[in-house]
């Protein structure tokens, strides 16, 4: 994939307006996300917009494409586990390459490498990250419609399962990296018990060195890298050492047997409900997709750590701000760029706003006000096209009504009895309005917030924490608020 000329603005705008978009957002930094997003484009094969502002990163994909791909994969997986198993074989193969690369980095720490070696490392690392992300995005294709697809498969087979039962048959049946980390720590504690090791802090820290090395990444995220030291595991180890040997063995067995236990429980349920093989394959697919997510995270956290360490060392040696380097593409971190004032200035403009557009021709980068204009256009289009909105139930019930967006007291006069009150949050002055509302929907807030408490008091449905209600919904739309499902559906556009 190549860096291409920026397509005309008009072209991008038309593209934005003629598609329905699926949005994913995360707090992160471009250095970590550029390459994964490009990888995703290779796998999904649809235009992608990526916007970044401060630490808020948003990706937009064409929803239709995702749904069609998910649907097709599901249909192939009805009677056989082969498609997903085949997909996973390739995934693990690629992951192994990345793993070998991590091992090589650990053998020769980044801080001890010369500048040239670090630049070379980035040049090799980036294509590996790209390849990794171009083959693990299957799970995300099920994001927009996964629940709906699963429900329709149940219906096809005339099987009814409760929410808890569905959770059980689709839950990952492996130990994820946090659980593996805990298991290893239990094993270490057991070994210390058996061999009657010295239990002073100094001795325990020595014992923890290789554990800390192996799991240094577990507290990282898309945004923050925190490389763990032996001392970060000390308190946990000491707590385990308070237990006697028999209890420790028991704890360890409980943990290790978790996958088997889940498998047995699932099997029991599948048998008791007489689930046909067709549906069993579908459940298997969903289980594997959740496992894929876990494993992918494990690799992502490590990738971020090494990218961060590269940026950290380079920032120090070239006397540039680390925050600026976190706005660069990994491949942009070169000797030539880092010694170029103009490049650093460009990075600074990215902090305000920048956008990445990817299609079959390659990717292009927009900075400053261009990126801002494009991101505004996307936000408007996204608000207009979406027919559903999700949040959390704060007061149960279902109601229909006309949307009124209330941003301040000056909007009160447009509110009529039976309307749906849509607001960023509510305040005591809003109570007279709330008393006349058929339902309440907010952008922010939890189960204990003002809006939630009053809605329960009034006995009307309330959905909180939608993040986007005031942006996505419009005055005059007729909507159904199904609080039990946490869902707002647009029934009728403004007439």
């Amino acid at each position: 994939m190549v860096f291409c000329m920026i397509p005309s603005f008009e072209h991008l705008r038309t593209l934005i307006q003629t598609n329905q978009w699926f949005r994913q957002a995360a707090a992160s930094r471009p250095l970590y996300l550029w390459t994964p997003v490009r990888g995703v484009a290779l796998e999904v094969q649809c235009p992608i917009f990526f916007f970044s502002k401060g630490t808020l990163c948003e990706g937009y994909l064409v929803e239709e494409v995702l749904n069609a791909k998910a649907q097709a994969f599901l249909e192939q997986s009805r009677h056989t586990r082969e498609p997903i198993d085949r997909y996973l074989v390739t995934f693990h193969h690629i992951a192994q390459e990345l793993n070998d690369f991590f091992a090589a980095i650990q053998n020769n720490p980044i801080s001890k490498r010369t500048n040239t070696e670090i630049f070379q490392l980035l040049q090799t690392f980036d294509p590996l990250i790209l390849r990794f992300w171009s083959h693990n995005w299957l799970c995300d294709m099920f994001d927009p419609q996964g629940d709906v697809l699963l429900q329709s498969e149940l219906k096809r087979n005339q099987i009814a399962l409760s929410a808890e039962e569905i959770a059980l048959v689709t839950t990952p049946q492996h130990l994820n990296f946090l659980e593996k980390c805990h298991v290893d720590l239990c094993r270490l504690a057991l070994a210390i018990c058996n061999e009657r090791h010295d239990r002073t802090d100094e001795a325990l820290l020595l014992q923890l060195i290789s554990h800390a090395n192996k799991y240094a990444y577990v507290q990282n995220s898309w945004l923050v890298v925190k490389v763990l030291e032996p001392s970060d595991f000390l308190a946990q180890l000491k707590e385990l050492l308070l237990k006697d040997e028999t209890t420790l063995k028991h704890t360890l067995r409980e943990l290790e047997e978790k996958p088997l236990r889940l498998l047995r429980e699932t099997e029991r349920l599948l048998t008791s409900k007489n689930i046909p093989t067709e549906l069993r394959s579908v459940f298997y697919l969903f289980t594997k997709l959740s496992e894929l997510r876990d494993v992918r995270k494990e690799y992502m956290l490590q990738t971020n750590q090494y990218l961060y360490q590269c940026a950290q060392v380079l920032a120090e040696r070239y006397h540039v701000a680390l925050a600026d380097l976190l706005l660069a593409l990994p491949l942009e971190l070169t000797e030539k760029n880092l010694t170029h004032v103009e490049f650093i200035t460009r990075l600074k403009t990215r902090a305000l706003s920048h956008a990445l557009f990817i299609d079959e021709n390659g990717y292009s980068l927009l900075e400053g006000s261009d990126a801002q204009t494009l991101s505004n256009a996307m936000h408007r289009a996204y608000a207009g096209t979406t027919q559903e909105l999700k949040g959390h139930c704060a007061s149960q019930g279902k109601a229909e009504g006309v949307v009124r967006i209330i941003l301040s007291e000056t909007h009160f006069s447009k509110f009529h009895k039976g309307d749906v009150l849509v607001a960023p949050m509510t305040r005591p002055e809003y109570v007279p309005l709330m008393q006349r509302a058929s339902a309440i929907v907010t952008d922010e807030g939890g189960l204990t917030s003002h809006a939630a408490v009053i809605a329960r008091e009034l006995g009307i449905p309330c959905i909180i924490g939608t993040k986007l209600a005031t942006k996505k919904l419009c005055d005059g739309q007729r909507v159904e608020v199904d609080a039990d499902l946490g869902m707002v559906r647009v029934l009728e556009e403004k007439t």
Partner: protein
Amino acid sequence: MKSSYIRWFEEVRKGDIAVVGGKGASLGELYANHISVPNGFCITAQAYAYFLLAEGLQDTIRELLAPLDPENTAKLEKVSHTIQDLILKQKFPLDLREQIDAAYNVLTEDGNPFVAVRSSATAEDLPEASFAGQQDTFLNIQGIDYVYRYVQRCFASLFTARAIYYRSRHHFDHNQVLISVVIQKMIDARKAGVMFTANPINNSRDEMVIEGAFGLGEAVVSGSLTPDTYILRKTNAKILQKHISIQEWGLFRNPITGITEEQPVPHGQEEVLTGDELQELCALGRQIEEHYGSPQDIEWAIYDKVYVLQSRPITTLK
């Protein structure tokens, strides 16, 4: 001689609503039962009455309100404004002033001058005023002059246009409604939030809801940000459901100006609460619920340890 204008938390019990209002009474009761409530005192409802009487303000207010037609919105707004202005400008009688000064000095003798000023209603005159923390609360107040100013703001809040309208419509006597003000040591919370010792959504008394965010809990109470939400089993604090929300900002005290402000939270994608903190909160919730004998709505904050800022019964359980 025991002052009738100031009551320390340790002198207050839950039956003292007529003297220190609902909030004050609840804080006193918790304090007396060794729940870790930041210390403080109440400026009593009698102090408020004395403040109005001393310079004849009460009569002026009566005269202003007597001819008022509450349906005349423009007039109502104007009178409300005039009365609030009078209250804000009225000086405190000297003996009242001396007592408040002395109490503030004792409260801040550890060198930390920050307090929270909260109004505490003696009667639930406004239906919406009974809800979570929605009566006036002023945070990070520093210095006695500012304390007076915000105490006056609490007094004046009895005469907002809405409050006057509501009392007139329901034929409540404006002069019978009293207010107390709580002055409490400010906890410079790293994280804070609200806990319901029953699940208000499905009315289950075997579950509890804990919501938390970085910074002061007011942002959770108002719903201006989306907190992390946990639903726990009450007996063993097992997490039944959790929803983690990326916290882009929180309410913090500016270290230079001392003013409460929205600040970005760089580590906002992390979970606000640790497993241990959840356990501790859950145990605390059980203890308070047991004491009152009914499910509670509790505000909490964490600085060096967990503090309880308020507890009241959940109003909506079926």
